[in-house]
C-alpha cells in the first residue's frame, strides 16, 4: 500500500505535466502556430546548448528556495503566501549587510550575508507566525498583507535612502562585499564550455545544500518531527505534549529563512545590487513549485527544475516566435491545476480501495 502511494505520488505530477503540454499545444494551435515547432524551440532554448542548461539551473535556483519555504510551512499545516515579502526583506537585509561590509574579505562576508538573508526572511515570517500562534489569526491573510508592507518598505528605502546617486534606475550601488563567484570559470576549467556571460553562480550549490537541510530538519530532528505532527493533527500533537504554538512560530521562521535565501542568487550571485521590484513573483511561483513537488524537499528540486526549463524556454519562444510568453504561464497553471485535481482523485481512489480491503478483511474474519 505504501509503495502504491509513493509510486502514484511520483506518477501523478508526471501525468499532469504531460497533459498540460497537450493543453498548451491546443492553445498554440488555436493561435495558429504549430505546437511541435513551438515546443521544439522551447526545449532548444533550455537544452540546446550548455548556455541554455546553465540558464535552467540559474532560473531554478531562486525557485528552489521559494519552493522550500512554502513546502516547509505546509508541513506544519501553514499556508505561507508570504514568500514574496520574505524574500524582499531577506534580500534587502542581505544587500544592506553587503553595503556595510565593504572591504571585508569574501570568506567572512559570504557567510555573514547568507545569515543576514536568512535572518531577514525569518524575522519577517515570524510576525505572522506569532500572530497565528498567539491570537489564532489566519496566516494566509497576514502573510499576504506582509507582502504589501515588504514590497512598499523596500521600495521606499531603495528609492529614498539607498539609491545610487545620479541614476534613474531604482537600485543600490554595487555591493562589492560577499559576491558569490559565477560558475562559468571553474566549469570551463574542467572542460564544460559554459559561456562566461552565463549568470549561473555558486548560489545553486547553496540551494542544493538547502534541500538537504530541509530534508534533514524534517526527517532527522525532533523539531522536524514536531513540525510534521502539528501539520498532520495539531490537536493530537498538543495532546502528545508538543508545544504547538512554539512549533508554529519556529516553522514560520525556518520557512521565511528559506525564502530570504533567494538573496544568495539574486543579490550575492547575480545582480550585486538591490533592484526595486526585482522578484516579479518568485515567492508566488514558490507556491506552485511546492504544490507540484508535493511539499517534499526532493519534489521541490524537480519542480523547480521543470519551472526553470519552462522559464528558460519561454524566453526563446518569446524572442523567436509570435507566440507570447503567456503560453508558458498557461502551461504552468494547467500543470498545477491538474496536479491538484489528480491528487484529489487519487486520494479518493485510495480511500475507496482501503475501505474495500478493510471490508473484505472484516468479511473473512467473521
Amino acid at each position, binding site marked *: 500500500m505504501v509503495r502504491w502511494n509513493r509510486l502514484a505520488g511520483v506518477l501523478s505530477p508526471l501525468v499532469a505535466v504531460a497533459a498540460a503540454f497537450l493543453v498548451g499545444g491546443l492553445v498554440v494551435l488555436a493561435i495558429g502556430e504549430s505546437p511541435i*515547432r513551438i515546443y521544439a524551440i522551447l526545449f532548444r532554448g533550455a537544452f540546446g546548448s550548455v548556455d541554455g542548461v546553465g540558464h535552467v539551473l540559474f532560473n531554478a535556483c531562486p525557485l528552489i528556495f521559494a519552493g522550500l519555504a512554502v513546502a516547509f510551512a505546509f508541513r506544519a499545516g501553514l499556508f505561507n503566501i508570504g514568500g514574496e515579502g520574505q524574500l524582499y526583506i531577506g534580500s534587502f537585509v542581505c544587500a544592506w549587510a553587503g553595503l556595510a561590509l565593504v572591504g571585508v574579505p569574501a570568506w567572512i562576508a559570504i557567510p555573514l550575508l547568507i545569515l543576514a538573508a536568512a535572518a531577514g526572511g525569518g524575522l519577517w515570517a515570524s510576525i505572522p507566525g506569532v500572530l497565528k500562534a498567539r491570537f489564532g489569526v489566519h496566516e494566509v491573510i497576514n502573510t499576504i498583507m506582509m507582502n504589501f508592507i515588504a514590497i512598499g518598505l523596500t521600495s521606499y528605502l531603495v528609492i529614498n535612502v539607498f539609491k545610487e546617486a545620479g541614476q534613474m*534606475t*531604482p537600485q543600490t550601488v554595487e555591493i562589492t562585499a560577499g559576491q558569490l563567484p559565477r560558475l562559468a570559470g571553474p566549469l570551463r576549467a574542467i572542460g564544460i564550455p559554459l559561456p562566461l556571460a552565463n549568470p549561473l553562480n555558486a548560489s545553486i550549490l547553496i540551494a542544493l545544500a538547502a534541500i538537504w537541510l530541509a530534508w534533514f530538519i524534517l526527517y532527522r530532528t525532533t523539531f522536524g518531527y514536531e513540525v510534521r505532527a502539528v501539520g498532520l493533527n495539531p490537536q493530537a500533537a498538543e495532546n502528545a505534549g508538543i508545544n504547538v504554538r512554539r512549533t508554529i512560530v519556529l516553522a514560520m521562521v525556518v520557512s521565511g529563512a528559506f525564502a530570504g535565501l533567494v538573496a544568495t542568487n539574486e543579490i550575492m550571485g547575480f545582480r550585486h545590487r538591490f533592484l526595486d521590484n*526585482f522578484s*516579479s513573483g518568485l515567492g508566488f511561483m514558490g507556491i506552485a513549485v511546492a504544490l507540484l513537488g508535493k511539499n517534499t524537499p526532493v519534489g521541490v528540486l524537480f519542480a523547480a527544475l521543470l519551472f526553470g526549463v519552462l522559464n528558460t524556454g*519561454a*524566453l526563446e519562444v*518569446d*524572442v523567436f516566435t509570435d507566440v507570447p510568453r503567456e503560453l508558458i504561464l498557461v502551461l504552468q497553471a494547467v500543470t498545477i491545476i491538474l496536479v491538484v485535481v489528480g491528487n484529489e482523485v487519487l486520494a479518493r481512489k485510495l480511500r475507496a480501495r482501503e475501505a474495500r480491503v478493510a471490508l473484505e478483511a472484516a468479511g473473512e474474519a467473521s
Partner: protein
Amino acid sequence: MRTAFAILMIALAFWLVGGCNTGDDATEVDAFRVGMVFDVGGKGDKSFNDSAYRGLLRAADDFEVEHTEFEPGQDADRETGLRKLAQAGYDVIIGVGFLFSEAMRNVAVDYPDVNFACVDFDVRPGETLPPNLAGLRFREEEGSFLVGVLAAMYSKTGRLGFVGGMDIPLIHKFEAGYVAGARYVDPGISTTVAYAGTTPQAFADPARGKELALLQFGRGVDVIYHASGSTGNGVIEAAKEVGKTAIGVDSNQNYMAPGNVLTSMVKKVDNAVYMTVQAALEGTFEGGLREFGLEDEGIGYAVDQYNEDLITDEMLAKVEEAKAAIVAGEIVVPKR
C-alpha cells in the same frame, strides 16, 4: 474514461496535423534585422512604448527590414534576451526604457558588430559609452513645461492635477517641468500630484489611473497631466466621464477623447528609433549619448484637429514665447 481517451486522441491528431506545416522555417540570413525589447506592460500602451514601436514599423516599411519584438518577463531575462538577439545575428537592437541600461551596457561590449540603442538610457556620471551603443535621452521637462503653460491658461478653477506612473526620478522630471510651466503663467496656481505606485505595474494600471483622476477632479481640479503609460488611459477616460480635461503624454493622445484632451506632451521616441535604424542601415550609426529637446523637435506639444478648439491664439502665443525662451536658454526648466 473512454470519452476522455477519445478526446485526447482527437487532440493528438489535431496536434500532428498542425505540426506538419513547419516547412517554411528558412530564415534569410542576409536580411537586415532589427530587434526591439519592451518593458513589462509595454507594447499596446498607446503612449511611450507604442511611440517606439511606431518608429520601428515606419522604418520597417520604408527600408524593408525584418523585425521582432518581445517583453522580458523577469529582470534577468533582459540581458539574456538581448544576448539571444545579438547571437542570432540581429543588426540593430533597441531597448525601450531605462531599465535596459545595465543590460545594454553589459551586452554591447561583447558584440561590437551589433548596434545597440537604449531609449531613456540611464547614464552613470562620467561614463563613456562603447561606440556601438547609443543612449537616446529626452528633455521631458521642457515639453512638460509647455503643457504646464497651456494647462494653467486653460484652467478655470486655478487647480491643476498631475498623475505619475511609477514614483521615480524619470517621472519627477515630467512633474517638475509641468509645475514650473504652470507657475510661469500663474505663480499662485495650485497643483495636486499623485503617483499610481512604486512598481513597474504603475505604468499599466488604467483602473488606478481613473481612480486617482476622479479624486482630483472631485476636488476642483480641471486639468490633469498624466505621465503614466497605459495607466493614463484611465485618466483620459475619467476626464471624458466628468467633462474635464486631461493632457496626454509621449504619443499624441488627443484623438483618444476629442474635446477632453487639452493637448499631449509628445516625446518623439518614434523619430529617434527611425533615425537609429536608418543610421545603422546607412553605416552612419554613432554610439554615445544623444539628447533630444525642443530645439530639434524631439520634444513638443500636439495641436491637431482634435484639440484645436480648446487652444486659443492667446495660449498659442504664450506657449511659443515660452518655447523660444527655453531654446534660447532664458528659462532653465527644473528637473525635480
